[in-house]
């Protein structure tokens, strides 16, 4: 069974949701998805953690860290292990950032690895995804874009690869990706253009 922890990956818009991607690629494996919140059913969570062969955390990164709710969750899990819970599954992370470079999730990835050391959980593999606004600013409005390789595909390929590692229960080197089809400069220009445009629309509505 794969335990999918939704740590808040709301930035992954315009593409197939991460859990569905993992579920699709992992095929016959049962996938249970749990949203990380302040108040959770911990008896149920501990059962899932014990039964899972893989624990997958998908989360946004802000200021080089996962969210406060995720940190709180991790501390609770560590405490459970100290109190005798046994977690045999490997830990896989999929971290998202709106910033262009996937490497800007590296620090958050290290925090998760340090958690695994504390909780005596084996680290599986990390996937850091940058340029996560691709898909909104790079939509299919123009004919030119219709004939370009869909820039959002860069996430799907890597999610498929991550799902393979999860399905086969193996460890691998962490991977950090960015939307290679789009230059950093173009990404910034497009995102800022879309942001300013949506602000203008919002102001017009408010008036």
């Amino acid at each position, binding site marked *: 069974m794969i335990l999918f922890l939704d740590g808040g990956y709301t930035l992954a818009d315009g593409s197939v949701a991460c859990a569905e991607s993992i579920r699709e690629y992992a095929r016959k494996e049962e996938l249970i998805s749990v949203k990380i919140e302040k108040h959770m059913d911990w008896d149920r969570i501990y059962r899932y953690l014990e039964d899972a062969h893989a624990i997958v955390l998908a989360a946004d990164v802000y*200021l080089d860290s996962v969210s406060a709710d995720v*940190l709180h969750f991790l501390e609770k899990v560590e405490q459970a292990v100290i109190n005798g819970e046994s977690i045999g599954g490997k830990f896989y992370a999929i971290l998202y950032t709106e*910033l262009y470079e996937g490497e800007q999730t590296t*620090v*958050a990835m290290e*925090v998760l690895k*340090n958690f695994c050391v504390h909780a005596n959980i084996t680290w599986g593999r990390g996937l850091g995804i940058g340029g996560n606004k691709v898909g909104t600013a790079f939509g299919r409005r123009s004919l030119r874009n219709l004939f370009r390789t869909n820039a959002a595909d860069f996430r799907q390929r890597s999610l498929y690869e991550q799902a393979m590692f999860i399905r086969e229960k193996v460890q691998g080197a962490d991977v950090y990706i960015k939307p290679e089809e789009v230059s*950093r400069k173009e*990404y910034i220009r497009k995102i800022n253009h879309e942001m*300013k445009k949506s602000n203008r629309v919002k102001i017009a509505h408010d008036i």
Partner: protein
Amino acid sequence: MKVIVHDLQEKSWQELGMRLQEKDVVISESGGCEGTDIGGLMGSCSQLVLISRCVYGGFSPFVQGVLEKCRKHFGPLLEMRHGQTHYEVKSANKNTFGMVCCFYGNNITPREEQSARILSVSDGISLQARGVRIAFYDTVDQLRQLKGILV
């Protein structure tokens, strides 16, 4: 004006005996921070002090939660800085405020210390601090030494 964010129990904080000025603002779990314009305070301070239990080489949930609250003063526009993309900082005090990150905890491993250092410097760059000072203490009592670092 200093803005101090800490995750200490109120008793431990009082025992540190920090000498604060009238304008200084302290944000803590026991003091509550609902309704406080944290982003606005951070954007106008001369020194931002983060005192945090070291959690896996990063900030504690409370301190991280406070940083998340200042999100609206950050972006959504992007810019290039130091060869990487960063959110545009709208604050009036960018490049003028100092940042101090203090981590405490027994058994902070070398790897966690390294993670915490990188995180602090990276956050300083993201928030456009003038500079970042980082300190580690084994116990809460040792935090008294902070008095020498704060302006």
